[in-house]
């Protein structure tokens, strides 16, 4: 029953800012989760494939380039297509408040902006897993 929460930390698109993604990856690992980091420049297809291969409970995407409205929803669409809609999908990065309702409507459960403490993200994951 003590299966660790498995998280894919992903960098979709061409953005190279990975400080946040790496800090989050390490904070989640230090909190006892199993973390897989994709590295840079992942297409939504690659992210979903990695999520399936690694059988993750959570996909945490970080993006600072402004392409979030295009790339984040593509990931949730693909998850639904593959029949694994029970993966919790969250996002973070430089994302204007105005875009968050749209992203939530597309299945991104939460969006964490700059300055969010890692423990806020950790608690959100622990409280909102779709897989029990």
């Amino acid at each position: 029953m003590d299966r660790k929460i498995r998280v894919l930390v992903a960098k979709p698109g061409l953005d190279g800012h990975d400080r946040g993604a790496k800090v989050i990856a390490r904070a989640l690992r230090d909190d006892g989760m199993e973390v897989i980091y994709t590295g840079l420049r992942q297409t939504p297809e690659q992210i979903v494939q990695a999520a399936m291969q690694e059988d993750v409970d959570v996909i945490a995407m970080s993006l600072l380039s402004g392409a979030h409205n295009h790339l984040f929803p593509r990931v949730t669409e693909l998850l639904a297509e593959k029949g694994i809609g029970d993966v919790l999908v969250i996002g973070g990065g430089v994302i204007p408040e105005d875009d968050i309702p749209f992203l939530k409507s597309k299945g991104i459960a939460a969006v964490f902006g700059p300055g969010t403490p890692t423990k806020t993200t950790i608690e959100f994951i622990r409280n909102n897993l779709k897989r029990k």
Partner: protein
Amino acid sequence: MSDIEKKDLPGLASYEAGVDKSLARFPERRADFVTGSGSPVKRLYTPLDAPSGGEAYEKRLGYPGSYPYTRGVQNTLYRGRLWTMRQYAGFSNAEESNKRYKFLLEQGTTGLSIAFDLPTQIGYDSDHSLSQGEVGKVGVAIDSLADMEILFDGIPLDKVSTSMTINAPAAVLLAMYIAVAEKQGVSADKLEGTIQNDILKEYVARGTYIFPPAPSMRLITDIFAYCSKNVPNWNTISISGYHIREAGSTAAQEVAFTLADGIAYVEAALKAGLAVDDFAPRLSFFFNAHNDLFEEVAKFRAARRVWSRIMKERFHATNPKSQMLRFHTQTGGSTLTAQQPDNNVVRVTIQALAAVLGGTQSLHTNSRDEALALPTEDSVRIALRTQQIIGYESGAAETVDPLAGSYYVESLTDRIEEEALAYIKRIDDLGGAVRAIEQGYVQQEIQNAAYRYQMDVEKGDRIVVGLNKFQIKEAPPKGLLRVDPSVGERQVEKLASLKARRDNAAVKAALVALEAAAKGEDNLMPPILEAVRKYATLGEVCDVLRGVFGEYRPSAMF
């Protein structure tokens, strides 16, 4: 490092006794005081901590404009001319960015700084599948010479200096710039500006790499060789600590990893048969400025001293220009908060002041809204005005290296130098910067520092105003800049129309010639220039090179 001894300071003992009494009654705010980078800070600095005069002064500090350049690379510095106020800008398409550059020039900027979108930086045309959603977002989309002509329309290239933040495909964008100048009737030897062209920090901290290290280094040294003959006033590289610091490094690591990269470029150029004094005068640097004013000033001073010694002692450069570390500074994007964003104006002021007190050659001040989006015109104006206030009102520009002789600043300068030299030694032992990066050493050091910082903030050991203390409830910010989402489609249409009207046979021939050159050893600049003149696209040129060189595949560690 001082030539004074404790016995020369008879009053010090009674000061220390007084402190003990005070501490017994009022403990200090915290047990340990540290700099922005986490180095210990003493209660008081005295002549024991700094070169005081005579020989130690002459050897370690010297005079502005002379070796070891601790006090600056120019003897009159800002008394002659203020630093170049250069605001990094670019978004959407060439038309929109051209308007922003004209706005900035009207507002009194003295040089342009071009931000390219990510597809351009990674050598993809706007119609590539990986470009979807990214076109025009973090900078301007440039697919071909046709876009570049619009970008600089009405901007005479013999009158401005232009910095281009472009790395992996730097040769292609430089070639396009030269080709636009030709069309304006400006010959390449009149051009002034900079390409970033620093691939090593892309592998470590910024992520816009294309090719593996060996062919990337060849492209860089080809540019050195080509420009030394044809574009002599061009800064052929801007060896960048900025992004290393943004990725989370300390100030000393910023100096160390940047200069270690610099050493790797010099070694590559020497190996390619260039003479050090032919290319080294055009090497330039790019640093960050964070909030710890004194540590940042010390960082710039230490960087100059360390680099000049490396160039003189290790590479035997004799031209003084080869020994001078000239640098651009940008204030620290990662220090800005999304919370209470107007406070960022104050942070930027402190950081910009550090750059000026540190003797920067040019400066970009960030806008208050950059933790939220690309800056609006209003925000950019405040950022530029911040520089102008420092330059014209603060008095900081009226004398050269005003903080020299501060016991604290000199001590910090020595400490950063010492730490940087230790890192450079370690990197040398690993086989140089390229090997150290391939082994993940540099990345790991930066990540450790980034994580430490984040944990310090979360524990409250480090206060960030408005973020973990003095928070308020605030409404979401209004009036952020949004890039028109249709820019991608329009760019794709432009590209299709270009491909229909250009001489496709000439493009093909130019690309075949480029491929042959890439497989051989000839300098790649001439065939790239020929291809862009014929309106070969950036993606087409980079695809030819990808075919010959392959692509870099990093390991994903954290």
